[in-house]
């Protein structure tokens, strides 16, 4: 029997990928507001990535098994960068932020509080999210907070593929028959949360003043809503009524039971063996 191979810990835990930046250039209230923005973005990408991964092995066709696994990997990668940026800003730890919170402390938008459900539902939800995310990333790509602008520039190139993929699926499902019926059911049940990505952020005025965010969330919600209506109409799909509100998109009394279940899954290793690396 030879010696047991040395267990290598993952390097990324010891050395964050994100270049160091000077947190002192921001005054404390602006830094706090920026933290709030980063937390919502990181949680969105993180939670969506785990929902995507629920299709690994059971997607309706092999190509989508591969696609959704890739989408999941992309989103978790984006979340990791955002958590690392947030950790630098707050002087905390990215893994603790990602895995060390209670289910109630996540700030993902309500759109991502729904379970995976069926394929049409996952497509509709992802399309609603991706189109909203594109608007949000557009408002950050020339951010005055340069480290954020830099990673947004990288992330949005990858998200373009996501958006394209979901766009194709929306068109496929919208063609008719049972797929179209399921898509309409999914859109109707997701509709109240369709603008939830743009829930107002605490002190977002400070972010706009500092040039970190290009427009208020409510303005981004308006832009997104017009785009949604346009695409749905062009596909001959019903635009559900009334226009959804984005006001209470992230502050919920309690996250859904579905999210609690997902949280239980993705925090399991961290809870069983805090500080574990793999």
């Amino acid at each position: 029997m030879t010696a047991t191979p040395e267990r290598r810990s993952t390097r990324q835990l010891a050395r964050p990928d994100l270049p160091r930046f000077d947190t002192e250039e921001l005054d404390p209230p602006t830094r706090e507001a920026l933290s709030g923005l980063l937390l919502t973005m990181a949680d969105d990408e993180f939670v969506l990535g785990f929902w995507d991964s629920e299709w690994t092995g059971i997607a309706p066709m092999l190509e989508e098994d591969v696609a959704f696994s890739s989408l999941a990997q992309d989103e978790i990668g984006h979340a990791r960068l955002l958590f690392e940026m947030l950790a630098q800003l707050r002087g905390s730890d990215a893994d603790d932020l990602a895995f060390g919170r209670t289910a109630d402390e996540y700030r993902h938008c309500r759109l991502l509080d729904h379970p995976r459900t069926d394929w049409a539902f996952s497509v509709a939800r992802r399309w609603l999210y991706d189109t909203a995310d594109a608007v949000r990333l557009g408002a950050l790509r020339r951010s005055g907070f340069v480290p954020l602008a830099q990673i947004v520039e990288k992330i949005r190139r990858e998200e373009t593929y996501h958006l394209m993929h979901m766009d194709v699926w929306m068109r496929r499902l919208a063609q008719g028959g049972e797929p179209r019926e399921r898509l309409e059911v999914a859109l109707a049940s997701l509709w109240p949360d369709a603008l939830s990505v743009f829930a107002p952020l605490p002190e977002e005025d400070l972010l706009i003043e500092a040039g970190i965010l290009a427009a208020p969330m409510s303005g981004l919600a308006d832009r997104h809503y017009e785009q949604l209506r346009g695409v749905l109409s062009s596909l001959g799909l019903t635009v559900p009524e009334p226009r959804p509100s984005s006001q209470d998109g992230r502050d919920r009394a309690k996250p859904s039971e579905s999210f609690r279940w997902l949280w239980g899954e993705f925090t399991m290793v961290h809870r069983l063996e805090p500080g574990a690396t793999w």
Partner: protein
Amino acid sequence: MSALRTVDPSAGAPMPLEQAIWAALEDVSDPEIPTISVVDLGVVRRVEVGPGRVRVELLPTFVGCPAIDLMRSAVEERLAGFAPDVEAVVSFAEPWTSQRITPQGHMRLRESGFGPPAPAGDGESLLPMLPVAPCPYCGSLDTSIQNAFGPTLCRAIYHCAACRQPFEQFKTV
């Protein structure tokens, strides 16, 4: 491959350290496509040489790419003899794009059965990102995309109608 292979023997002068480092980095390959080096892939952004130290900046092809950690350790291992303090860091100062792949990189990709990325991808519009990918086997343009997502984040799956071969394209980003 020797790190000194690019020295011009007629010059006789010692090779500048930075140049030697770039040459050495050509020995470090992409762990997911081992025929292409990190230099030809355009992952190496910058090499900085200071007294007793070497710093290399790497641009990840995709944010969630697990290979970047391997590349970082491989770069540090390869350069270990060049200075007491060798550091490889990941940078986002500019986005890696598929246009960073060198002409030699394109050749290596084709040799390994990969379609090289198209010269598009300004990041502004969606359409140029799904160009016609020439088949790496027969060169035909009668190809179609099967899946924008492949076995790794940076690869898409195509099919060639002329030689009836599936192939992978290095994504245009």
